[in-house]
């Protein structure tokens, strides 16, 4: 239920950061990235190119995809130097 004028903060201000995380753009995609973990060299190139901050990075290692937000653009697969990421048609 959307809030009414009496309870919303005034002036159109969004009073917290990062609330877009509640909006799951993962539902947009047709293709989903699939990584061959064995081939991955943790170069982090996919991380520096993901437009949606959907590459998980922990301690200098690539640890997966944030599928809630991944739009399946395919850039990660395209830039990976060892071609360990493939875009597969996602079954819904």
């Amino acid at each position: 239920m959307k809030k009414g004028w009496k309870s919303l903060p005034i002036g159109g201000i969004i009073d917290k950061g990062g609330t877009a995380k509640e909006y799951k753009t993962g539902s947009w995609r047709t293709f989903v990235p699939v990584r061959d973990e064995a081939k991955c060299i943790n170069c982090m190139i996919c991380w520096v190119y993901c437009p949606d901050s959907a590459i998980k990075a922990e301690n200098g290692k690539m640890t997966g995809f944030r599928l809630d937000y991944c739009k399946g653009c395919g850039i990660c697969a395209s830039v990976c130097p060892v071609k360990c990421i493939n875009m597969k048609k996602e079954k819904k």
Partner: protein
Amino acid sequence: MANLKELSKNIPERLCGGHRLCAGCGASIVVRQVLMGTKAPVITASATGCLEVATTIYPYTAWEVPFIHNAFENVAATISGVETAYRALKKKGKIKKDIKFVAFGGDGGTYDIGLQSLSGALERGHNFVYVCYDNEAYMNTGIQRSGATPKGASTTTAPSGKESYGKHQRRKDLTSIVAAHRIPYVAQCSISHWNDLVTKSEKAFAADGPAFLNVISMCHRGWRFPQEQTVEIAKLAVETCFWPLYEITDGRLKITYKPKNKLPVSEWLKRQGRFKHLKKEEYLSVAKEIQKDLDEDWENLLKRESLG
């Protein structure tokens, strides 16, 4: 020298997922890479355009940092106000932190409607970084031509047709216009050369005064290419010298990347649907003119660099 592993560990993500930019959009890559140039808390501002509209649809914001959008033509004036308030309140001891200020504008909000407020902010010497994500047209409102649209490109307000090959005029050389304001640091960057970009971004954030980064930003909708090729197309822009990577530090120009093998501009043009009409017989000369202009510009840039 930036190190991706270190960057991924030490720099917080200032832009989170859940924003509604197109899949494969270059603009958010620009934002993410530029913001890797500083660890300090940042306050961001954006002109109206794709970036602002897609990242802040009430009540959702993809910004994990303070963010302000005011109007289309005034992000530089707006950030001037924010930065001045910071100095005023810091002087009074009300703020203690070291904060960095970044303004983002598309080519629309920077080359055209925003040029005046940008010029004013640069002349006044505010301490901020201005990042133009240049996708060479007013993309958010439907791919309309801007002062940054290259000659020969088809846009919805200067479309190619029976009697026209698209935009007749050359792009503005905004980077030089900005440099003419004698600000401490100006640079042209591309996301394809992330190390060069992040290094320049670090210099921009460290500059004492205004710094300007002009970053070519791929728009696969407006430029008509498959969405996964964003980075590839960015690389071609640099390898053809369509978008030279250089910096001007206190007035001294240095080209930061010289392609070993300068590719013909046709390699760049043929990959994008916005130039496909140039293959027509009646417009073949236009592609030749584009190459000639580009070569002249590149020669001039080399000359400027040699002048020191």
